[in-house]
């Protein structure tokens, strides 16, 4: 079972890597923001699988923090960072 969990974790890691390469290429800043979503789902799934594969409960907490941060950082990036990049400094 642990072998299967590790294999799945590696498979998801490969997925994440390919997706990140695609996302980094853009072409728009919005495409790059998709990386925040990727870590919130694929990243969390990898951590969960590894937590069970290695029986280390600490990784579950890491996954929890990832899920929390994915929401907060994603929202912050979408609301703020991109605006700076576009060079429009209107405050609303």
């Amino acid at each position, binding site marked *: 079972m642990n072998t299967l969990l590790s294999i799945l974790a590696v498979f998801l890691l490969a997925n994440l890597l390919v997706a990140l390469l695609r996302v980094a290429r853009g072409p*728009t800043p919005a495409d790059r923001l998709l990386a925040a979503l990727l870590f919130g789902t694929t990243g969390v799934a990898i951590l969960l699988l590894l937590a069970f594969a290695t029986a280390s409960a600490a990784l*579950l907490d890491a996954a929890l923090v990832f899920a929390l941060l994915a929401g907060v950082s994603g929202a912050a990036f*979408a609301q703020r960072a991109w605006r700076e990049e576009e060079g429009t400094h209107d405050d609303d």
Partner: protein
Amino acid sequence: MTTIEIASVILLLTGAAFFFAGTVGLLRFPDVYTRLHALAKADNLGLGFIMLGLLLQAPGPATVLKLVLIWLLALAASATVGFLIARRARQNGIVPWQSGDRE
């Protein structure tokens, strides 16, 4: 293998399949809006199945609750961030791809 282990394996493999579909969608879909569809739906479902598969192997009720909590947080994060990205993209004038356009 017990029945529970078999069920767990099936759920985990289903989850991985949805993640794979999400990644393929990300690579093939033509614009940021359609890619958001792929990530928001397929990846969340993938995470849901992975979570269910692991639930069956959880050592205690506290771990079960923690897994469900993680999944709910991830769901909320995806829905909210997906919406914010789509809104921002539209405000910044990114025009949605139409079926007549070249990819």
